[in-house]
């Protein structure tokens, strides 16, 4: 199980040459994700989703609060936890000058897989994501769809238990988005725990079991899509979001 407990992240922002201000990117956020559950992290741009997911993945430290993965915290077990997590975001780009095969090999080596283990895992992944035709091609020559499949494959090379996907379909066309959605559905079927951040409310409604809505760094509601619609007396999550934030200006 993945538990987020009262997590807060404070940043300093330079507003002029001499002046800096402090602001909370995430403010006292708590929720949990059980095995096989797809938890949607929803919110507009700048709501604090990426920072939250970076803290959960252990690549950023919270100012206060903690993240527990199977009861272990990042402070004492960071490397162990990272071995159980796959983190895919719009910000995690791939090296352009290597091939998908070299990328998978490199990631597998970081995860400490033995040579035999890694070879069979790479074969399996290449077959699964239909990458045979471009596995030795330089990444900067891949099409968007091939790039996306390579991105996903590098996340799963170590067969993780937890998937953290930060706006994975943002900026993608329908076909490339489908690759991601299918991947999430399959992972869910395999009892993987998935945190799925997006600002596409309809997408979240389709694949998420539970929704954590965030605005300006704060959780505004947690529940299943149905519960949220009921609570807000709306017919879809988009309307629910607007009903919850009222007339607030998000700029």
């Amino acid at each position, binding site marked *: 199980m993945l538990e987020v407990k009262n997590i807060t992240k404070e940043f300093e922002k330079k507003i002029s040459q001499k002046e800096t201000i402090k602001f909370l990117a995430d403010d006292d956020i708590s929720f949990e994700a059980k095995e096989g559950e797809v938890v949607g992290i929803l919110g507009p741009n700048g709501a604090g989703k990426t920072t939250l997911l970076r803290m959960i993945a252990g690549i950023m*430290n919270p100012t206060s609060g903690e993240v527990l993965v199977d009861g272990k915290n990042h402070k004492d077990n960071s*490397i162990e936890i990272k*071995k159980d997590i796959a983190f895919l975001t719009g910000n*995690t780009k791939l090296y352009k000058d290597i091939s998908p095969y070299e990328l998978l090999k490199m990631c597998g080596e970081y995860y400490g897989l033995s040579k035999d283990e890694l070879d069979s895992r790479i074969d399996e992944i290449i077959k699964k994501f239909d990458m045979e035709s471009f596995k030795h091609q330089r990444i900067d020559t891949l099409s968007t769809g091939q790039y996306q499949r390579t991105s996903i494959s590098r996340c799963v090379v170590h067969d993780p238990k937890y998937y953290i996907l930060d706006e994975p379909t943002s900026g993608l066309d329908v076909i490339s988005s489908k690759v991601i959605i299918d991947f999430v559905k399959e992972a869910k079927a395999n009892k993987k725990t998935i945190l799925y951040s997006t600002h596409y409310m309809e997408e979240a409604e389709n694949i998420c079991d539970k929704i954590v809505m965030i605005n300006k760094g704060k959780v505004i509601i947690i529940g299943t899509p149905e519960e949220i619609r009921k609570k807000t007396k709306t017919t879809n999550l988009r309307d629910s979001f607007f009903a919850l934030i009222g007339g607030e200006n998000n700029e």
Partner: protein
Amino acid sequence: MNKNNILVTIKKELRSMFRDKKTLFMIFGFPFVIAFFIFLMGFMEESVLGEGGTTYNVGFNYTINEVEETLLDSYPLEYDYYKDKDALEEAFELGEISGYVMFDDESKVYTIYTDTSMGGMNVSTFLATYLEDYNQYLGNLKLTNQNIDPLEIYDNFTIEMKNVSGEELSTSGFLVELVMSLSFTYIIMAITLAAVNMATSAIAVEKEHGTLETILTLPITTNELICGKYLANVIIGGVASLIGFALTVGSFGIAKNMFEIYEDFSISFGAIAWGIVICILASFLIGGMAIAITAKAKSYKEAQASGQILNYLCMIPIFMTYLDFKVSTTYYIVPILNYTTILMDLYTGNFEYINLLITILSTVVCIGVVLWLLLKTFKSEKVLFGE
């Protein structure tokens, strides 16, 4: 620290470097420039002195007498008579002659005509000296005709030129020192160029392309990541400097037998061994400094600009040689600047163990400080995410 993570990072960095033509040139191409430069300067120096077999064609508007012929034979000049100024000008324009002398019998003025090219400058120097010799000869002749021994008039004292060590002062000594200072500076610059280039792609380009965040999602600590990147940078800088060093010392060794100006260059097993130690130490320090300096840059351009400071630092010893700046023992504490100087000391016989010891100790201390700074810098999320 997990050794496997460090090794995988080194492998990743080296692979990326071997696929980058610019860095490859810095490592394998740049040192050849040093070798080319050493031979070029040897050749040019001998051309200037006319010892390399270069002769210049010159013209005169008067017939040369026997005495003038004898005097002219001591210069690398081939000469011919031309009937007037037009004929001389035409020959000059056609490139048949590099300069000419016009004599006006009425005013007794010799005028040397040439241009500002290197050949022209040499010709004007040779012709002016030859005319001074001829003037001297005519003066001596007048004195002899009056039964006065010219030696009694002119031979009042002797002039000798020696350096402070009491050795004969060679006119080419300064040039050799300058060539050595440039060559050894280039060895250190080979490290900075390769290290800055590598550090730029290791940190700034990774941030710019978003791959740094990808790496951070993997089970690797920032300390392991930075250590891997640092060691890869040291390897690249080390290879660049050792290639440069081998080519420089090898070139001087060959050039020593080809050009007189390099005859004082001394090669010994000790000088080579200490030279290698200096190159390796310099790579350890400069490799770390390059990463530390470029760490906060958010883009390739920004990182390249901030890394230039290392290249400028490397060039200071060249200006010091040019200005004949004498250094004391405390100078050897200053890292980067001291490498060129200690390498020059090793190959010019000015070497002192205390200076070498100071150079090594100051480098080791600086490496420690840079490593501490690196590990501290990369703890900052501002540096890692640029936020």
